[in-house]
């Protein structure tokens, strides 16, 4: 396509985006009219001018009538009403449709916009009608400073609009207003160049140039090559030890890393582009469902890779729709509940520890976990017993199960959940994760964690049958070496299915060589397992062990796509070139889990695991960790949340601001003390605490608890046992922080609330 036309398309699309955003901002805050209406007018005028120049007459003609309407609005002849605003938004939609068609077929196509044109024209003339039937959104004469309350009032229904009792203003937060101002500014710039067919003059030289995406992609590929060449060179430095060579290689390595970072930066785009689509969605859904919604945005300048941004668009849209449609209550309901009439929806993006976090927060009805539990049991996804054992957090996770969310019944729960499995699988695909938390009656928070980029990732290199494979580090939980002490360090077989006892719980295993059909040796399995390593992986909701011959190293790999013939195998997510120049395949962890036959039972298994229920289903026993707390109290927590039992030297504990930490596996592990977790009925003097710390034992016993994002070390006096107990004889909670008491080994034992302990992780990592 002609480069000029391409530029025209890009520019016109941006113009229409601006028009849309400004219109929505204006609906939210009519006091902006003096700045925004002229800005909208200019944008539409520019679109009209350039389309005329290129001879796209349909777009020109519809832009022309829209411009007429805007001109009248600008001059204050007629007020902007909801109806007129809707018409102008329809113009934006039509314009987009035409542009899309031009992009695809080079012509406008046979769309008919005469009805829209007529209505736009009518909207200019029916001054009396519009002025009298509906109060003006913007008074025709002097633009007033309308308060939100007034705004709600003036959005009265007009005759032609669907019979909605009170149309909802989507009140604008401050951030959008600023956004709108910013958006208006470049309009003024390009305005100078309009009619010149894309010729740009004026203050456009603000230090940026437009670069085609292909060029960036190409650059990224080249940098990938460079990284690979660098890796090869570094491998050579181990052979050739000449000083100058080493130094040069080192410098090259540094420059390469720097270049890699910069090119990655160049591909970064602020999330603003994506966020800007949201006000329109919120407006439309809110109008339709008769809700009042304020939209807030934070961190629109957070940047992430273009490819990720594109992949995020659909899930985010879905979540926003969900929030407005089902999360936020109608104004009447909110009034009854004593909440502000306007629901608040917040989009928030920020960088957190090498990841991008995007959150969708609403203050709506939240999700009733009891209903989810009931539904899950009804659907046969969980046994009633297990459902009851789930923490609220785990119950919320059920929403993401495919079988659960596609069911229509879910809509009855609280409306949430339709397509949530799709949201999760989309995010999974780009290496991210989704978490949901909700307080019934107060709202829901959906949190999406994303990697910064997809092109270069850290990966664990493993060997199976003398061949190297790469596993994305993000999926690796831990590594276990077989054949090293302990009574349960062997792989066991149940009906030929290999399992491993990992901290008292059975971990399903998959042999990589058997899965890939590499195992043709015919050797008995046991002989090959000596010295093998289990890579514990998590995929979707399940956890499994991958048995490999050896583990080499973690390296940064450049992900290269596979040819189509091999993509069909759906077990490799790509390939990469290793330091020695040979190719290694990247394993798709999700596919491994599926191929290993884990998918079916694994999910429920996960819930069992979280709830601390035992794997064996026939006897109702619970795997627990028993330990001794202060005052010789016997306490326990479910084994499922325990990631490790540790003994650490007392002097490695550091205390900052009353909170203790240790350095643990390359991270900072917050410690929780039992006295901080349980709350005494009678507030006992806590003087002893400080003293204890000083003259305590040399070793501190830790129970390390972890869920997907949090990890906390619980300091206990002694670890007593890990065992399966029936917990059938139960008593009420003895004090705060204790879920219930039970007879364990003939002694009363307090079951601690793991959520409270995990809460010590504070801001989630």
């Amino acid at each position: 396509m002609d480069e000029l036309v391409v530029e025209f398309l890009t520019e016109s699309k941006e113009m229409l985006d601006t028009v849309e955003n400004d219109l929505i901002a204006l609906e939210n805050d009519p006091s902006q009219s003096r700045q925004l209406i002229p800005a909208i007018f200019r944008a539409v005028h520019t679109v009209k001018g350039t389309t005329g120049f290129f001879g796209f007459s349909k777009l020109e003609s519809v832009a022309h009538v829209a411009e007429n309407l805007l001109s009248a609005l600008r001059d204050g002849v007629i007020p902007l009403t909801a109806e007129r605003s809707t018409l102008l938004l329809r113009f934006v939609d039509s314009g987009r449709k035409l542009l899309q068609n031009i992009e695809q077929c080079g012509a406008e196509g046979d769309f008919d916009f005469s009805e829209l044109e007529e209505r736009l024209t009518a909207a200019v003339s029916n001054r009396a009608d519009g002025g009298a039937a509906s109060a003006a959104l913007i008074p025709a004469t002097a633009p007033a400073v309308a308060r939100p309350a007034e705004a709600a009032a003036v959005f009265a229904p007009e005759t032609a609009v669907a019979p909605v009792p009170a149309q909802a203003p989507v009140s604008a937060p401050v951030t959008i207003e600023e956004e709108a101002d910013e958006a208006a500014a470049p309009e003024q710039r390009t305005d100078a160049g309009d009619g010149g067919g894309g010729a740009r003059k004026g203050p456009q030289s603000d230090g940026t140039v437009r670069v085609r995406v292909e060029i960036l992609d190409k650059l990224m590929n080249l940098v990938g090559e460079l990284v690979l060449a660098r890796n090869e060179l570094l491998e050579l430095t181990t052979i050739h030890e000449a000083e100058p060579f080493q130094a040069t290689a080192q410098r090259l390595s540094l420059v390469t890393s720097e270049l890699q970072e910069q090119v990655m930066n160049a591909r970064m785009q602020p999330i603003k582009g994506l966020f800007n689509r949201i006000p329109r969605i919120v407006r439309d859904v809110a109008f339709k469902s008769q809700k009042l919604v304020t939209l807030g945005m934070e961190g629109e300048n957070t940047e992430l890779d273009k490819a990720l941004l594109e992949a995020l668009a659909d899930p985010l849209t879905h979540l926003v729709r969900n929030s407005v449609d089902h999360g936020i209550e109608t104004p009447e309901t909110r009034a009854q509940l004593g909440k502000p009439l306007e629901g608040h929806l917040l989009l928030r993006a920020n960088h957190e520890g090498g990841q991008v976090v995007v959150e969708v927060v609403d203050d709506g009805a939240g999700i009733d976990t009891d209903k989810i539990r009931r539904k899950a049991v009804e659907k046969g996804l969980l046994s009633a017993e297990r459902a009851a054992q789930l923490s609220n957090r785990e119950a919320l996770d059920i929403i993401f199960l495919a079988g659960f969310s596609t069911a229509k019944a879910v809509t009855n729960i609280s409306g949430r959940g339709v397509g949530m499995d799709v949201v999760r699988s989309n995010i999974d695909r780009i290496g991210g994760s989704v978490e949901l938390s909700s307080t019934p009656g107060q709202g829901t928070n959906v949190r999406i964690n994303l990697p910064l980029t997809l092109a270069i990732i850290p990966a664990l290199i493993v060997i199976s049958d003398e061949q190297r494979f790469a596993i994305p580090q993000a999926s690796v939980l831990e590594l276990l070496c077989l054949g090293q002490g302990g009574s349960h360090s062997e792989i066991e077989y149940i009906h030929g299915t290999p399992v491993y006892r990992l901290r008292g719980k059975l971990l399903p295993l998959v042999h990589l060589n058997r899965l890939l059909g590499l195992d043709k040796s015919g050797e008995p399995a046991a002989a090959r397992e000596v010295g093998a390593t289990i890579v514990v992986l998590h995929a979707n909701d399940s956890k499994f062990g991958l048995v490999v011959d050896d583990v080499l190293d973690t390296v940064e790999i450049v992900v290269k796509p596979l040819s189509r013939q091999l993509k069909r195998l759906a077990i490799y997510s790509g390939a990469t070139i290793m330091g020695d120049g040979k190719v290694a395949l990247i394993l798709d962890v999700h596919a491994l889990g599926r191929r290993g036959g884990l998918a079916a039972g694994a999910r429920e298994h996960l819930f069992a695991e979280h709830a601390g229920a035992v794997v064996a289903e026939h006897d109702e026993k619970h795997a627990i960790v028993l330990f001794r707390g202060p005052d010789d109290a016997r306490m326990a927590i479910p084994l499922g949340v325990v990631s490790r039992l540790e003994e650490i030297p007392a002097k490695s504990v550091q205390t900052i601001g009353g909170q203790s930490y240790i350095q643990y596996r390359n991270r900072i592990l917050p410690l929780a003390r039992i006295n901080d977790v349980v709350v005494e009925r009678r507030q006992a003097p806590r003087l002893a605490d400080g003293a204890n710390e000083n003259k305590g034992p040399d070793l501190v016993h830790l129970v390390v608890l972890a869920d997907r994002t949090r990890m906390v070390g619980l300091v206990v006096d002694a670890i007593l046992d890990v065992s399966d107990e029936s917990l059938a004889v139960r008593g009420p909670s003895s004090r705060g922080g204790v879920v219930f008491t039970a007879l364990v080994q003939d002694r009363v034992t307090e079951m601690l609330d793991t959520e409270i302990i995990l809460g010590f992780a504070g801001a989630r990592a």
Partner: protein
Amino acid sequence: MATMSTLSAGGTKSSGAGAIRHYCTFWVESLYLGVESIRVQEVVRHIPTTRVPLAPPAAKGLINLRGQIVLTVDLRTRLGLSPRDETLLPTNVVVQTDDGVVSLLVDDIDDVLDLDDSVFEATPSTLTAHLRALLLGVCKLEKRLLLVLDIDKVSQLED
């Protein structure tokens, strides 16, 4: 192993009787095969391959072609011929197909031939259906027949 460097200069020139096509020719077992040289990216000697478990048998593996990861297809397997003697290192004929760049493993490379379209004929129906499906046609040379491969079909790995 002649004319390796001039392969990419292929193309179609019209002259007298019909169009002249350039064919890159090679041997696989006893078959004399050709690919129009405009489709050939390069010819390289044996490169160590990384096998791809679970892939169709004809997909021999992946090679690193100056940073580009390329799938290799063993023509012996693909054409249903006897497996190659392990001491015989195959040559990579790297071609551009509908499925991207693919490297064909052949026993031996031969000349580039300029052939008039008049010597080209549809594949005789007496050939096995499997082989026929992978050929575009046959060029009648003076001494022997050149089988012209349909590399887009070949690269699909399965019929």
